[in-house]
């Protein structure tokens, strides 16, 4: 048996990430006493370095390595940079929150970095093995992260729920993958998609069954209904800093998984997964929007809104054309940036000893801190899809692809749900601008760097609305 050393160049960002994560872990263990902020700085450095390496490796060709189990391509690079950038902002927002609450400092960063590493592997995975590996590397640290605030019963419950649900999801996905493996006798996504063209009709059923489980697993990880139950509990139960992380980067990783497994692997079964995704999208939009209306906790409301947004994103996927895929990736990127801002706001406004969690806490934010209120207004408008902010173009893209796929009824329904969605986003705006504040004090819990970060985040949404071409073209080139 001869062993060929695979080309490791495409995986250099991941290798760098792994090395840096270990360094952060060690620095936290031995040097934190003397340099308290060293792990934080090193984590940021790791992310920046990984971004630089990913961008440097960005080519216009697709490259496959590690015995056909690892791919580096357009969409992968875009999503990786988004994941890394998101995590960078998460750390900026979280620093003070984590320090204030005696959450294990280094562990927080290390677990996040490991999770990011898993996401990067998942994004680049091109066989079932590497895909599952990535999925587990990214999921396991999340369970620990949620339970990081060990004395909070709410967090422990959320972690337990997430763990069980996550385990079920992984199981479903594995079950589905093994069925597909059974029918095609290969674990390589490229090979599977090749074999599928000549699969005998008698195995159709098992493939479709496998597909059902794959779709269920993907929907789980995305947090789409009816596999969404963990989302609100986890978002509300976890410390805001962790919620901020869970609500952003993993969505992109799950999206990448959906693209690899559905778009890359099973384009021939597009009709089948289209139907399943229609169900997921409709139920997600309905439950997400209707239930969000009555929420009083902002984190929980945003959780339901994320369910609804995942519904909208799947609309792009299910339309089954290149336009739809690029619209979906644009949607997921824009959603991640919006959700980063919204949860970031919750995190940075929460000061020592109090949380800004309920919607009532935001009463009169405009008079307490006009600039942050304005950023929040931008974010809420964008989530509601008000033109000309980025969220509008995200919705426009998926709706256009739906119409292209002759699913006009779905497009109309989606927009009717969007109206209901607009209701609760506007309620937040109304509370911020028209209600009298409960506390008169100005909000000054934020430090300079977080203020700059959140402003950049909110204004980026606006800029992206005025020039959506910046990212849209990248997404378009990827499919």
């Amino acid at each position, binding site marked *: 048996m001869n062993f060929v050393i695979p080309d490791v160049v495409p995986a250099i960002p991941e290798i760098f990430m792994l090395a840096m994560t270990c360094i952060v872990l060690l620095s936290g263990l031995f040097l934190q006493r003397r340099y308290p902020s060293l792990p934080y700085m090193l984590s940021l450095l790791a992310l920046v370095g990984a971004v630089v390496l990913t961008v440097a490796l960005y080519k216009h060709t697709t490259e496959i390595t590690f015995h056909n189990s690892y791919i580096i391509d357009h969409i992968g690079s875009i999503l990786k940079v988004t994941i890394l950038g998101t995590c960078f902002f998460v750390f900026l927002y979280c620093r003070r929150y984590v320090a204030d609450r005696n959450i294990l400092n280094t562990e927080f960063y290390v677990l996040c970095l490991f999770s990011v590493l898993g996401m990067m592997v998942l994004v680049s995975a091109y066989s079932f093995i590497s895909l599952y590996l990535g999925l587990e590397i990214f999921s396991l640290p999340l369970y620990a992260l949620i339970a990081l605030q060990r004395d909070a019963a709410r967090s422990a419950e959320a972690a337990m729920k997430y763990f069980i649900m996550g385990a079920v999801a992984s199981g479903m996905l594995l079950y589905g993958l093994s069925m597909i493996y059974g029918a095609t006798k290969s674990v390589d996504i490229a090979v599977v998609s090749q074999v599928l063209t000549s699969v005998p009709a008698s195995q159709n059923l098992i493939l479709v069954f496998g597909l059902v489980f794959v779709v269920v697993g993907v929907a789980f990880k995305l947090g789409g209904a009816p596999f969404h139950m963990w989302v609100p509990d986890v978002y509300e139960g976890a410390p805001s800093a962790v919620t901020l992380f869970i609500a952003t980067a993993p969505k992109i990783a799950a999206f990448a998984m959906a693209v690899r497994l559905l778009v890359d692997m099973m384009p021939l079964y597009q009709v*089948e997964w289209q139907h399943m995704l229609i169900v997921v999208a409709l139920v997600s939009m*309905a439950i997400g929007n*209707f239930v969000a209306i009555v929420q009083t906790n902002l984190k929980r409301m945003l959780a339901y809104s994320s369910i609804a947004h995942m519904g909208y994103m799947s609309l792009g996927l299910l339309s089954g054309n290149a336009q739809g895929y690029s619209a979906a990736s644009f949607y997921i990127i824009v959603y991640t940036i919006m959700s980063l801002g919204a949860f970031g706001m919750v995190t940075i406004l929460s000061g020592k000893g109090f949380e800004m969690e309920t919607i009532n806490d935001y009463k009169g934010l405009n008079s307490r801190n006009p600039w942050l209120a304005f950023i929040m207004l931008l974010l809420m408008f964008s989530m509601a899809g008000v033109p000309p902010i980025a969220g509008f173009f995200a919705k426009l893209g998926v709706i*256009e692809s739906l119409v292209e796929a002759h699913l006009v009824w779905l497009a109309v329904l989606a927009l009717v749900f969007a*109206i209901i969605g607009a209701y609760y986003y506007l309620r937040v705006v109304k509370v911020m601008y028209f209600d009298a504040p409960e506390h008169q004090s100005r909000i000054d819990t934020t430090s300079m760097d977080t203020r700059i970060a959140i402003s950049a985040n909110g204004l980026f949404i606006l800029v992206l609305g005025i020039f959506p071409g910046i990212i*849209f073209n990248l997404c378009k080139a990827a499919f």
Partner: protein
Amino acid sequence: MNISCYLLIGFVLSAILAWRRSPITSVLLYTYWAILLLWSIKVIAPFTTVPIMWVPSLDIQFSYHLDGLSKLFTALISGIGIIVFLFTKIYSQADPAKYKRLAALLQLFAVSMLGLVLADNLIALFVFWELTSISSYLLIQFNTASHASNQAAFNSLFISVLGSLVMLVGFIELHSLFATWEISQIMSHSMTIGQQQNLHLCLWLILAGVITKSAQFPFYFWLTGAMQAPAPVSAYLHSATMVNAGIYLLARFHPLFHSLELWYCALTAIGTITMVLASLASLFQDDLKAVLAYSTVFALGAMVYLLGGSNAVTIEAFSIFLVFHAIYKAGAFMLAGVLEKRYHTRELQQLAGIGRRNWLFALIAIVTFGAMAGLPPFFGFTVKEMIFKAKLSTDTVSYVLMTVSILSSMLIAAASFRCLFYFFKRPAAEIKSPSKLSLGLVSPLILATLIIIITLISQDMGIIISPTVKAILPTSTASYLDPNSSASYLLSLMTVFGGIVCLLLYILLRKFSKVKFGHIPLDKYFEASLTLVLQLGRQLTRLTQGQTITNHLRIIVSSIAVLLLATIISGHLIQVHAVANHQATSNLLICSLLIMCSLSLLLSCRFLYNLISLSLLGLGLSLFFVTKGAVDVAIAQLLVEVLSVIILLLVLRRVDLKAVKTNKSNRIINGVIALLFGMVVTELMLATRSINVDAKLQNYYIDNSLLLAHGRNIVNVILVDFRSLDTFAEAIVIVATAIGVSLLLKQVLTTRGQSHVDNT
């Protein structure tokens, strides 16, 4: 200058107005709109219309469609805009901060409206459309303290955004039909039959946007609610802008859709219903602004009705009515605003006699309300005449429709007469005397003068509106028609007298009953349906939120089962394979044991019984394996069963078993879900039989395990020989984990021991 830049300047100007107020900003504001007004009536031509790319990848750009139609709307927006700004300034002189906000918002709104009527790109148009919705929301809820205005503003925003989003789908459908966002290109496109059919869908979707924005039945309640806004806002929104956006869009798309049967039917039906209901409601209002609001709805209905037609006379009547209505309605609203400011009331009864006190009031009231009623000396009469003529000129004159529209015109005339009647009635009590002549009357006076001028030069109106008619109906050749048809003349006269008769009838009716006709509480229905949505949300929340993990799993498993079942039903027929049947009797015995165990598991509510059934089930399974000759699997199964029972019992020592009880209905649901899932999985198992397992590897191990590895137990050989490296690595992982765990445990135990010592 590029017109995009000019629009941008408009938005910047709005920001400046919000920031500070000085004579310079006022001069800038008036210059801004004056340039536009002069441009739209072709006095100057300072603008270029080079499109500016916005999103090249989506073909979205700021491009402009400048024809008679958009010029006419520009003229209305800028002309009425200047007068409204003038009015605003005088109206809120008392409170400069408020004025700043009002002026800034009005400017924002006006520029959005301008963008809307100029844009050629559908997406750009949509963006401006949404901007008008948002800015009008801010305008209507200008008095933030008032609950009514908050509610009205919310209704208006909700309704118009709802419609606009549906309309957006229509735009996208148009784009997918014609592969362009540009209205001008869509218009010049020749259509295939297939596209013709898809056009119906587009029309339905776009109509949704139009009827919500232009306050048609059943959505007009937002407009009547919007009278909560300050007078300048009402004067602007109700006359030249906002509500006209839908009308503009209809006119814009007239060339594309007018050949469809649906176009005529839908517009006629919607227009007529709106006209009748609004005119009836208008007569029964006691609030002056409400009378005017309903009459606006009536006018919009009439415009929609007219646009349904497609001959030159109809379109001409539409254009003239549009202009004329904008002028007199703005005047009337300003008059109402001045009255409200002076007497702090809008009730007609309390305003009795104001026309006698002040000749200027009297003049403006007679001119504007006379125009609204269509009194003979004014141009309103001529307009009415033209409308009737247009209605008569259609190929298929429906006499029912004709009668209905004449009747509603009579009712509107009666409503205006009623207002005039109150203005000149002898007041019951002396009202507080207004101190001095209000400057606020300047603006309505200008409008009244304008009405008189138009009346004088009515023969030349054709020059003004002919480019518009040309834009809506490119093929029309007819020039401005002298409305001297005897039939329509008679009908218009009839309307005036009918109006007086209606008013008398109304007074008579009021003597006997207080019933208000024509008032449908649509806003109540709307709010009720909103409450319904909220209720639905609450119910759904109760169903899906805050549940135990068992419930979550139940939902998950059942949805997976349903998904699987759906795939089986949709096309993939159930494949039934004959199962080999060698040991029928023993199979039967074991199967019945298994079924019994599952049934008792399902039916029994006692936890211990359940445990016993569960372990019996495991036993049955291992028996099953034994009969199949898989003794090792059976042993493994048995061990697992025993182990799990032991662990469960260990855990259960700490649990109060009596408390662990589930209710019957839950059990039934669980049973159904289990049955469903079991069925689907059975089907799956049967399907797996069709897979041909590749026996290459299997045979390799069987052939070589003795030969190469000298072992008889193939499983062992695979573990320690063929895949020894894997096993080795696995062992390393386990050892490493064990070391880590033991270290952690040691630390935990020592710290706990220490704390224990501390406590004692």
